[in-house]
């Protein structure tokens, strides 16, 4: 089952390499991503029915949490591939991309998908390998454009994330050491399933050190402040569909790593140590995001910073703990993935139309591109956490968790930062969307594909804002059970 899930994108990637025309490669990648989505959904469904699935001699496994990640990856991946057709098609039409590059793009795209899916379903601490792979592939995707800025961004991304990931590996080794002392030197000493069982007996001091390394390591990848510095560069310089994947999914993957280790470490170090660290880093990320969002001149960077903020919120949710907190955090992962991708897609359309990333040079989107503008406004309201959109629910849950767990000050700070970010973000959004577009901007949407992709996400954003389907609720509750 899981194998198929992994093979599908690889296969698609390879096929993409052997295509001969734009039409072909698009068709292949679309079918491939649909296949991935379907398999992913089936997998999720199975996990939902029968609990943990293990295969490949324990190397791969999928419990509720992995399934959840798989769900996010496959949905956003699918939407992104739909969007890519519109976006890259436009680039292709305007000769920014030739066929060779287009093919490379799609190949890498699907390999990227593969790596992220792998993150979800590896059973053991080898999770590290998968995450490192995501870095490598996405770096390659980033330097598709040979612009100076994108190369710089790619370099920073590469270096900083590799450093981070190295720390993560160190943390992994320490955890393994702690495990080995209990279990003896078996391959199982790395598997979640066996680790969770004995995590209680681990040496707390070692686990503390390990957790610090893991938090800094995967935190770097997840864009927690102050290790977030690479993030705005990378996310703003990557091709838009990739930005969506980076912000919406990849960060979640890194978060996934942190949360996994959080579960293990907490069992031995006690909840205070881990959750306090998470709360500190979470608040730090929120706080760091504020000034950069308020005084931002580049809308893609603004979105990137808002990702930093939202990762902070997820960390907060986990840190606050309790059913509420973790439920909120998990739900937030999903909502953020959907909303942020929506925003990046909208930003992509704007970029294609106005050919600038500067906020001050963009105006009157609602007139030049009504649909995009409308959906951008919805997304903007959602991303800043105002009802009746999905993110509000998760954020409110996290906030209330903070209150109920007695972290009053942190929660109040959280609320304060949220309001400031809302003001900053919305100010920029209003300047962009309203008013009258500058002369020379032809009215008219970009393409059906892009709008379709956005529309799918808008549905998620709105529906989850007012109604959480029971099965979805249960799914998340299962994840919560895994995490606690």
């Amino acid at each position, binding site marked *: 089952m899981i194998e198929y899930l992994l093979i599908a994108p690889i296969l698609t990637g390879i096929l993409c390499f052997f295509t001969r025309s734009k039409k072909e490669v698009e068709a292949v990648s679309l079918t491939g991503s649909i296949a991935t989505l379907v398999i992913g959904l089936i997998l999720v469904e199975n996990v939902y029915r029968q609990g943990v699935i293990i295969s490949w001699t324990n190397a791969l496994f999928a419990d509720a949490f992995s399934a959840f990640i798989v769900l996010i990856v496959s949905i956003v991946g699918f939407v992104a591939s739909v969007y890519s057709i519109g976006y890259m098609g436009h680039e292709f039409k305007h000769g920014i991309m030739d066929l060779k590059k287009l093919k490379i793009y799609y190949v890498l795209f699907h390999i990227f998908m593969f790596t992220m899916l792998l993150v979800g379903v590896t059973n053991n601490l080898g999770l590290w390998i998968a995450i490192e792979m995501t870095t490598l592939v996405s770096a390659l995707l980033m330097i598709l454009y040979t612009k100076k800025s994108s190369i710089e961004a790619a370099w920073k991304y590469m270096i900083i994330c590799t450093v981070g990931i190295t720390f993560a590996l160190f943390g992994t080794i320490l955890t393994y050491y702690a495990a080995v002392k209990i279990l003896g030197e078996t391959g199982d000493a790395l598997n979640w399933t066996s680790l969770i069982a004995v995590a209680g007996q681990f040496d707390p001091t070692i686990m503390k050190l390990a957790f610090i390394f893991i938090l800094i390591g995967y935190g770097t990848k997840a864009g927690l402040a102050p290790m977030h510095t690479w993030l705005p560069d990378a996310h703003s310089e990557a091709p838009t569909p990739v930005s969506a994947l980076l912000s919406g999914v990849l960060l979640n993957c890194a978060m996934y790593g942190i949360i996994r280790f959080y579960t293990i470490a907490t069992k031995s170090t006690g909840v205070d140590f881990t959750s306090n660290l998470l709360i500190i880093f979470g608040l730090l990320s929120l706080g760091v995001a504020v000034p950069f969002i308020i005084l931002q001149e580049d809308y893609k960077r603004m979105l990137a910073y808002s990702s930093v903020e939202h990762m902070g919120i997820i960390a907060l949710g986990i840190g606050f703990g309790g059913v509420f907190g973790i439920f909120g955090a998990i739900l937030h992962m999903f909502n953020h993935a959907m909303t942020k991708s929506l925003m990046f897609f909208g930003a992509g359309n704007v970029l294609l139309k106005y050919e600038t990333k500067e906020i001050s040079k963009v105006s009157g989107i609602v007139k030049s591109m009504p649909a995009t503008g409308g959906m951008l406004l919805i997304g903007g309201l959602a991303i800043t956490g105002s009802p009746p959109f999905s993110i509000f629910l998760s954020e409110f849950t996290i906030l209330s968790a903070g209150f109920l767990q007695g972290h009053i000050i942190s929660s109040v700070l959280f609320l304060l930062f949220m309001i*400031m970010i809302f003001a900053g973000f919305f100010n920029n959004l209003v300047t962009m969307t309203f008013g009258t577009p500058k002369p020379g901007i032809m009215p008219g949407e970009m393409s059906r594909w892009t709008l379709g992709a956005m529309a799918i996400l808008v549905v998620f954003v709105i529906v989850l804002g007012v109604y959480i389907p029971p099965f979805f609720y249960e799914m998340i509750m299962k994840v919560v059970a895994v995490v606690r």
Partner: protein
Amino acid sequence: MVDNYLFIGFVAFYLLGAVSALVFNKKDALCSYISFLSASIGALAGFAFSLSVILGDTFHFILNEGQIPEFGFFIDKLSAFFILVISISVFAVSIFSTGYVREYFGKKNIGYLCFLYNMFILSMILVICANNAIMFLIVWELMSVISFFLVVYEHEKIETRKAGFFYIVMTHIGTGFIILSFLIFAGTSGSFSFETFRAAGSTMTPFLKDSAFLFAFIGFGIKAGIVPFHIWLPYAHPAAPGNVSALMSGVMIKTAIFMLIRISFDFLGASQAWWGYSVLAVGTISAILGILYAVVEPDMKRMLAFSSIENIGIILIGLGASMIFLSNEKPILSAIAMMAALYHLLNHSVFKGLLFMGAGSLLYSTHTKNIEKLGGLIKRMPFSAILILIGVLSISAMPPFSGFVSEWLTFQSLLLTFNLDSNFAIIMLSISAAVLALTGALAAYCFLKFFGMVFLALPRSENAQHAREVNIPMLAGMGFFALLSIMLGILPAFILPMLDRIAASFIGTSGQSFSFGTFGTISIPSSAWISISTPGLLAIVLILMFIPIIILFTSKRNMPVYETWGCGQPFSTARNEYSAIAFSKPVQMWFKGLYRPAREMEVTYSSQYLKESFKFKSEIEQVFEKNFYTPVVDFVMAMSRKAKVIQTGSIHAYLGYIFGILVILFMFIIAGGS
């Protein structure tokens, strides 16, 4: 049972209006007619529904039991009253709108407007109905967001965008406080449904109660536009289209009052005296400051917005008095004060709606909001003139119009403090009565200026020259409200019993706070002999009118018509009329300290004695904005600029951060802390 049908009915009609607006998006006229019509039908249904709840019993159901978010509806007499207010306003405004939106035909997207309009109404009603904190927050923000989109409907203008942004941010801050308050409740009750909040209200510790009340007061106060959180209001309300600002000012800000009553009376039982005092104080300050800014405001829609602040203040005075009485175990008096507040709330929604529609129609036919540029319209727009005059008379509390009754009630309820033995209460209430009197006088001043400058004497500009009477639907909409504010003026004896039931439902009185006599006489049993009968007054005045009429019109003499006397100048033009700013000058001089007026004069002389041209510019300063809000914003901006340096762009620095945090955490471990 009939309630269900009515409830579903009006919700359905608003939805229908919204949907049809989208369906017929292309055909402006058709679209506007259908959606506004269905809105008004919905309003009628809502009216019937609320009446049946007020006279019948509470109406509640839960849409999706036990899910997140849970949608529970709970409509008791209080909520029903607010639905009543909303429905009345919506009915008139919808009729008005069918005419008003013709201005936008071809220029802007009518379907979008109609859609938002209906959704806005629906969201307001849902706010009233909500019985669950999360649901409430959702619909509350929905209301704010939709109203924001309505405010920026004419988003081509930069100031409109600014106003909208300002509005949405302020209301968001308010929501933040509301969330805090709700979380305090939830912390005690362990659930987000309002029933459990009610239960929690009695078990909470005083500190929690106080903070819950305080946060709610601030949060909803921002929405209601109380001083010092009022500053968004004079920007947002003028920016919106006329019909929308009528709804926003007339109804939307009342939803905040509703929640304030809900929380402080229904949940917390108004147990602390200082709540009442603070509400009273804030109300008093809002009333006086609001009207002071209104008096000197040349832009009529801004003026009306400021006067909304004033009226919210008056409502809060009633509310505060009611809380004080309740906390002193005087439920009857508390009910009386509450009724004064509710009555004024109803009146305000009527006459303020009327005046905003009037401003809308002036804008419609003259395309200027500046009072200085108008004049002499009473000859060009006779019907509007009469209708607006009625609105003006009501808002300046002239007997026997509606405003008079509610202000009389407010004064009486303040007077009833002699039943308390707390001197502090007596002093406070008397002072606020004095300030209220000043407010009333200034309101008369302000609206006299408004009417006089806009309608009387000679037109001061081309726009006013070529103004024409507005179309029938607009007149009909205003007419309905004008009629209503006369009715509310002379028939309080029919309204008060209803209010009595409502107040009784959550204050816990018998519902016999007033006794009613012949000629619609209202008297207050709990204090000797105080009574009033507006029909009586009206009758007396009407009868006595015959005396001057007889004197005037017996043996008709001819009335030669001649120019206005202007110191023997050959002829009088609009140029030597008294201007609006000159009219309000005394007040400006009186309250120099508040306004900090900045004036500049340019005089050029043709000869030593003869002035050739004379230019006078005078501006007043918004104290709160200048001294409180701007500094805060500047501070945040400065801090942000400072903080931004961390993103230096140097990869070494970035690695340095990681290094630093690593070392810090190492130290943390070595120190052996957990």
